[in-house]
């Protein structure tokens, strides 16, 4: 699927519009901001892709096609917005913790019931 998406991007350059933007990710326990170009699908079928620059080799990242929405643990903005990015990442981590707590509770409930019925 990924290869197909990349092929579509490569074969139909007119289908995608590009804008300069900033990509925010978490790398080595710290927030990282990288400038680059975001490529968006005009037909809204494929997600966004962020091309990081400047770098020795061209590296790219799958991102959401909307500004300020986290996807693939990355978020992008047209303008540099450090605090907004930090807030989004804080929310994301809090959501992850909440989800994991819920999952752990489920497993612990199963364990408790198994142990109780074993006694």
């Amino acid at each position, binding site marked *: 699927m990924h290869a197909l998406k990349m092929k579509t991007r490569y074969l139909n350059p007119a289908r995608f519009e590009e804008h300069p933007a900033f990509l925010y990710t978490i790398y080595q326990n710290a927030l990282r901001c990288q400038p680059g170009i975001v490529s968006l699908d005009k037909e809204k079928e494929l997600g966004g892709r962020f091309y990081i620059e400047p770098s020795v080799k061209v590296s790219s990242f799958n991102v959401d096609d909307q500004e300020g929405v986290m996807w693939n643990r990355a978020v992008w903005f047209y303008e540099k917005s450090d605090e907004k990015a930090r807030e989004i990442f804080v929310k994301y981590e809090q959501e992850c913790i909440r989800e*994991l707590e819920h999952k752990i509770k489920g497993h612990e409930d199963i364990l408790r019931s198994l142990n109780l019925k074993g006694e």
Partner: protein
Amino acid sequence: MSNPYLSKKRLKNDEKYHFRIGKESFDVYLYSIRTGALEKRFGNLSKSARGHAQFVFFNQDSLCNDRIIVSQLESRVFNGLLWLREENDNEAKRLFIQHENAKCEELKEKMEKHRQNLILLQTTKEWHKA
């Protein structure tokens, strides 16, 4: 520290002690957990694709007449199910408890990492220098 029960190295070593299903099919007991209790079903097991096996119920009373995908290895929890060649409720219960404990530990480790990330995000204002 990673969980030794779930690590790939350990799983490879474990395979020596498990019975692996071959070409032939045979009758087994399938165990699962439903509403916090152990559930046992009797049926036939045969080899399936992608390193798994499929279980077909003998009891036709139940509405579910589907094939269930289970592990090819005996006493390995997969898809929330495990099978044993002989009826042994206590062993099944022990294996499920072991599996659930391992899952809990794994999730707790993940949660700890997210907590550390959250603390870092809330306390330090430093940025990664690319």
